[in-house]
């Protein structure tokens, strides 16, 4: 009987140990998987969300003059090697449906092809140029070569954001030097590499705004929970004129974020108010610092906590700086909430100055400043109440 009892206890103990081992192992495996899944990147929408301008003043834009301006900004790069920075700006400006007369003028579809088809890129840039598209051979990533010269994009995620803005779906085929991929791979690469504190974050936020509009929050690969509030905070953190194009892209993205929030309530009340106040403050500064002729430059924010911005002309000179700043200002104002809109006189002065400048620039200057000018041209078209390809429809077939 004792032996039996001892044997029974031994069996019970053995069962316990086995049960413990199995439970601990399976629970560990389950928890590891659950923790891993909670940090997986979010699933994007295939079709990008459209960000539409909310303001226009057709009465302030002379349509004849607009046609003349747009006709000067067609993507006629006149060379075998169109800089990628020009191509993606032109694509964003004109859209994919634009077509033009003339053999050397690239249509919207051709512009996109240059970005997403390695054969077109190699034909334009030659086989010896490093490919613009870099597929990740080990995973599902796809990178756009960036900030390494004219055959590369000028800013982080700029190309992807431009493609999103012209409505390119993520299942769009991309022909890389190593075979076909989908645009989704570029999105995955972007979100995988995104850090809230990276140097250039404006276009990454724009990419997320287009493809993650239904996702309230996600974890970055750094393990940080990314929310729209946090992205907005990052966009508002630095001094006003810091960032690309004197900080105007940050204002543009903030305005787009507010628009997204109006549809999806993605922001908290306090951050929403912060953005409104931030944009209103930017506009107040712009109104205060606008030159009598109607332009701005890098000193547009005036006095900040840290003093006023240094007034060193950019590498292309003062005129380029003014075109750069003024075109961008007019563009984000087209998306701005009512409290961040200036009086019509300010708009009138801006439109007048910008139209005059764009009409009087030499052909060489247009070639030189082209990426800046697309923002100005687009802004004028938007304030006239149309998209550039439609606004310029009558002009596109006119000789330049």
């Amino acid at each position, binding site marked *: 009987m004792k032996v039996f009892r001892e044997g029974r206890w031994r069996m019970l103990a053995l069962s316990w140990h086995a049960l413990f081992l199995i439970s601990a192992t399976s629970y560990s495996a389950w928890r590891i998987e659950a923790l891993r899944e909670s940090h997986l990147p979010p699933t994007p929408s295939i079709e990008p969300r459209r960000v539409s301008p909310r303001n226009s003043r057709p009465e302030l834009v002379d349509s004849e003059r607009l046609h003349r301006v747009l006709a000067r900004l067609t993507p006629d790069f006149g060379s075998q090697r169109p800089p990628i920075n020009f191509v993606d700006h032109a694509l964003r400006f004109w859209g994919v449906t634009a077509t033009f007369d003339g053999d050397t003028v690239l249509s919207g579809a051709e512009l996109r092809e240059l970005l997403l088809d390695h054969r077109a890129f190699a034909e334009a840039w030659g086989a010896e140029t490093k490919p613009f598209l870099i597929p990740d051979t080990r995973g599902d990533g796809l990178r756009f070569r960036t900030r390494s010269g004219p055959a590369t994009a000028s800013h982080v995620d700029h190309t992807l954001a431009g493609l999103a803005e012209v409505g390119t779906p993520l299942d769009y085929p991309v022909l890389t030097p190593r075979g076909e991929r989908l645009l989704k791979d570029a999105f995955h690469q972007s979100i995988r590499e995104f850090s809230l504190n990276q140097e250039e974050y404006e276009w990454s936020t724009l990419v997320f705004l287009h493809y993650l509009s239904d996702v309230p929050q996600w974890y970055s690969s750094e393990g940080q*929970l990314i929310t729209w509030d946090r992205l907005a905070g990052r966009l508002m953190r630095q001094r006003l004129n810091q960032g690309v194009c004197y900080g105007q892209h940050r204002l543009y993205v903030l305005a787009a974020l507010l628009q997204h929030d109006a549809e999806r309530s993605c922001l908290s009340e306090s951050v929403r108010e912060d953005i409104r106040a931030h944009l209103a403050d930017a506009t107040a500064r712009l109104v205060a610092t606008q030159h009598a002729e109607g332009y701005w430059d890098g000193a547009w924010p005036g006095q900040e*906590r840290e003093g006023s911005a240094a007034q060193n002309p950019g590498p292309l000179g003062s005129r380029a700086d003014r075109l750069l700043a003024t075109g961008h200002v007019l563009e984000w104002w087209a998306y701005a909430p009512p409290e961040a809109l200036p009086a019509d006189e300010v708009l009138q002065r801006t439109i007048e100055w910008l139209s005059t400048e764009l009409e009087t620039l030499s052909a060489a200057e247009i070639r030189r400043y082209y990426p800046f000018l697309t923002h100005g041209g687009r802004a004028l078209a938007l304030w006239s109440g149309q998209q550039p390809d439609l606004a310029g429809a009558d002009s596109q077939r006119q000789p330049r």
Partner: protein
Amino acid sequence: MSTTIAPKALPDSVPAAHVVSAKWGMAAPQVFVVAGFCLFFLYHNYLPLFHSDLWGHVAYGDWILTHGRLPQEDPFTELAAGVPLTATAWLSQVLLALAGRGTDPERLAHVFAAIGLASYLILARTYFLQTRWLTLSAAGTFAAFLVTWSRHAVQRPENFGLFCLAVLLWCVIRSDRRDRADSWRWPVSIGLTLALWANLHGSFIVGIAVLVCWVTGRAIDAALLSGRLLAFFRDATFWRRLWCLEFALLGSCFNPYGFDLLLQTLVFPTHPNLNSVLEWFPLEMKSLEGLPMALSWVMTGVVLRLSQRRMSAVEVLWLLVLNAAVCLRVRMIAWYGPIWILALLPHVAEILSRAADSPALTSWQTRFAAWTQPSIHWTAVTVLLVWMTFAFAPISRPVLGGTPRRADQVFSHETPLKVTRYLHDHPPSGLVFAPQWWGDWLTWRGPSEIRVMMTTNAIHLAPPQVWQDYLTISMAEPGWEQRLDRYRINTVVASVELQPELCRSLEQSPDWRIEFEDAVGIVARRKVLKSVALRGSP
């Protein structure tokens, strides 16, 4: 050679003084051991409070006490917002906050001295249980302390971890001594120890590793001794140890995060930011840790060569695992020392017990026989020693009174006391760059609204981009000013001793002005640029 004082059978009629001596008498070696521990306590009680993460832990504990819950994210480093926090040392932090709150921060020094003394006393007792040899166990304790010398000034929750390790090792040795009796006492004790440890410090994983080696080693020993692979099935000791391990695992799950704490602790060392933190570097021989490690390897070789005692698989596993851990992460030396001695001391005892039979030692023993006899006089000396230690140590001030020590004596010399005073008088706005080791201090003692870029406690929480940017600024590498712009930092605090490049760069920069400077640190603020006449109409 043994100096163990065994109670002797007394004759029916003996003088009262003899009875007292036999019961309360102490021998000279015991007095020396007590004196050693007194010195140990005195030294630790006088150790200045370190200027680094200690204050971050106090601040965390204070936050927990104030809010009545554990933080979900780092409450003091806004750049780590959105990164989930596992408070692996919440209980230690609460204890430290209870000691560090109020006007007498020196209480923290008392806590660390007391916990250090308790840990090493328990270790000494454990070694004594192994060898039944007082002086040898005291020498072993001292050796463990010396090996871990590089971490002796550490004042962190890690100290509570060492205490738990000492308790665990005591349980392990004690349970082996009472193999069959009290069969449930030891699994329960070990489970409770691990439950406490898991809430005090993330090093509980070391305890689990010690126990895994203890169980696995027993299975290997059973197989080796019997020649049968599955011999452990019939080995009662193996099963008893397995129970202990299981209770330990269950015990370690009694924490606010449950089983996840175990997983989080396991993946913690893989955080990329730790690659640039010295104590998480691999072992380097030319370092404070490399030398004692090398000496410990030499000593291990000599002892094992001379020992005739069989080395158990448990001892082999303990040494292998802990050596590998130290080689990979140098901070693991804190746990290596006590376990190295645990594995080696029985062999040393065996060698010395053989040597004790030699004529030279026998004559030496005879000559000093009187010193090893218990005497109430030695006891009186011991009591006096303990009292003097207490009286001279800062811990006695609340009881015996006296003048509080000056701030520069209580806090380590690198503590930015004057910088802190300056910041109180001129509170900074916006994010402040300060060396991460001062970030903790400034969080606790700086202006109430101060927002620092980095703290030691946030290194493993900060996104790697933030940490890299912090390092770029800290070492004034190219791009440091752009990084300050990126985070809109307008106030920089720098250490004169450890960040000379940054101090120099700030002095030379046209955009920054040194507003305060002393021998320890500087405070620089961004110069407000002269108003530029804007060309636009107002």
